[in-house]
């Protein structure tokens, strides 16, 4: 009984730190995929995010933004700033590392060259994260996100955009 209760206590305490509001940043390779991948090339990108936990500790809500600039050997260039909200679901299994799935939607600012046009498009995303707690405040993580840029509602649109972001992240429990 004692063993069970002490186990439960430690569990509770670690959970508490991770359930605090969190903010942090990430950077890593950003890769255009599909048709977009034939126009522009992989580059380094990075971003910042903020998260709060729902009353149920395995569910978080986050806001994420980043800056991604894709160049090419020629004249093509795409700048992309996604701003989206997402729900993060943590696998409710006791592990030293935490696994989280996430899905969300929002808007993305795009600027394309050589046409020199820019504007906002709706985006959808899904992703997966692994986090290692490093003390009470710091978390270190790896993430992989897929972002779909939706343009199907625009006249003349032939394709959307697929982007895969991978990165390492550092964030803090505050």
């Amino acid at each position, binding site marked *: 009984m004692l063993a069970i209760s002490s186990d439960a206590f430690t569990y509770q305490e670690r959970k508490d730190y991770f359930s605090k509001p969190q903010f942090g940043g990430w950077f890593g390779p950003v890769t255009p995929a599909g*048709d*977009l991948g034939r*126009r*522009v090339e992989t580059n380094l990108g990075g971003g910042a995010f903020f998260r*709060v*936990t*729902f*009353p149920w500790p395995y569910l978080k*809500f986050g*806001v994420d933004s980043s800056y991604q600039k894709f160049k*090419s*050997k*020629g*004249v*093509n260039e*795409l700048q992309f700033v996604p*701003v*989206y*909200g997402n729900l993060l679901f943590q696998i409710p299994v006791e592990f030293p590392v935490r696994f989280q799935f996430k899905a969300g*939607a*929002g*808007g*993305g600012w*795009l600027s*394309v*060259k*050589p*046409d*020199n*046009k*820019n*504007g*906002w*498009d*709706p985006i959808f995303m899904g992703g997966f994260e692994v986090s290692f707690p490093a003390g009470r405040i710091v978390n270190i993580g790896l993430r992989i996100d897929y972002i779909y*840029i939706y*343009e199907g509602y*625009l*006249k*003349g*649109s*032939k*394709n*959307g*955009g697929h982007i895969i972001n991978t990165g390492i992240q550092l964030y803090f429990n505050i």
Partner: protein
Amino acid sequence: MKLLKQPTAVILVLLFAFAISCNKDPLLTDLKTKKLIVVLKGTYESNSPMEWNMPAVNSPEYLANMQDDSVYECNSTTDTLPNVFMVDLSEIRLWDTRGKSYKFANYRQTFASSLSDNDPMFNGTGYPLSNDDVPSKAYTSIALYIRKMLLDGARSYTARDDGWYPSVVWDVFKESEYPTFNFNALQIHSYFDNLRLESSSINRVYPLVIPINDLLTGGAGMFYSSKFSYTILEIRIVVKNFIKKYEQKSTSSSEYTVKHFHALSDWLNDVEKDDTVIGGNVLAVARTYVPELVGKISGTATAGRHVIAIPAGSSILNYTLNVDPYIDHAVTTASTRDESMGTLRSLNPCNLPRKPTYYTGTSIYRALEYYMKYENYKYEWNKLVPQGTFVYPDFSELTTYCDSYETFKDQWNNYAKETSIRNMVLPQLAVYVPSSGTFTIENVMPGSYDVYVANRAPEYGKLYYNHFDHLDALNNPVYVSEFTFLKTVSVSPGSVATVP
């Protein structure tokens, strides 16, 4: 629940952003859409090219027009006509008015075209190139980075006691070997580039810079706008009926060998025997048109002639080459060129001999021959560039010595000015009048054009000349073109202007 107020607010903001994300244009589709279409043609004509007209091997016309005068050492008659033209482009760039280059076609592209009237390269259609769009603005010229240009039918001849022994020359195209010869390597320099101080920085084919003299910009470039659904940029390199056979000596083999190969005609920059380069002979022109704006020029003219349209008011003499200026004017009053007087180039007193290339093989006979050639080179050089008081018996033949860099520069500048080789441009619009006598110049951008017809049938391996007419009051020669004026026409979108 207090905690949830923040996310709710953020969700509302994001939904708002989602709602206002109403682009007019699908940006990602724009990134992919190609509105600038680049087309490569191998003809002098912009449409309706004349048929292939290569003379039969060893016919009198072949020896006169297809075989260059650089072929003199090897008299073997086993050469064949070329069948395939191959080009390897590493990329294309556009230069804007401030000299910035746009790598809009950073794609390696290779084309192999059969020398037939059906191949897109030679039937007036052209090959579309891979490229991206460029920003909407004005551009002055296009630069082709030509990695290779090859033609088949090249042979290497080895001298033996009982005659010349031919063997096929192989070269690499698209990472595979073919019985062909890359003559592009010899196009880097023109004959007098080698003797210039800055010769190491000269490259005439990488890139080959082609100015775009569109009527819309007053001849200063092209204007591209993404507002039009398509803009066609047409690049033409004169290949059709413009191929000649040249000769070069090998300097590395122990055996005495010469090479016969095919390359573009040396009509503009004459290639002489013993030349190691053939550069300055890639004649090219570029123009743009917007399909939704174009009209046509149609009419009748003598069958078998070229009809060209140039911007109204511009001088026809810019589209033709002045005839031999080193021959006395009295001689050239005859309307045909007197070949016996020598070529334009050989009469230039600064047409200095080329130093023979070092022999690197092991044959004593060939080494001795190299030394003899070297002695001969020194003799020829000293005739043109006398040193001290030494006088050669035949010095009286010369009226001008090429005894300083200044003279060298002046003489070649003078040559260029009088021959107009640096100023000559190809007409953007040209057609060949078929046997019906009715021609149509397609895809003409709106504007006023002067239409001309050639007063002679095209000659193989040659374009058009001016002829000396008379001396003006200041003793300057006055030339007339081989093109005769037909009519000034005005073209508007969708219309057909008729000539005459």
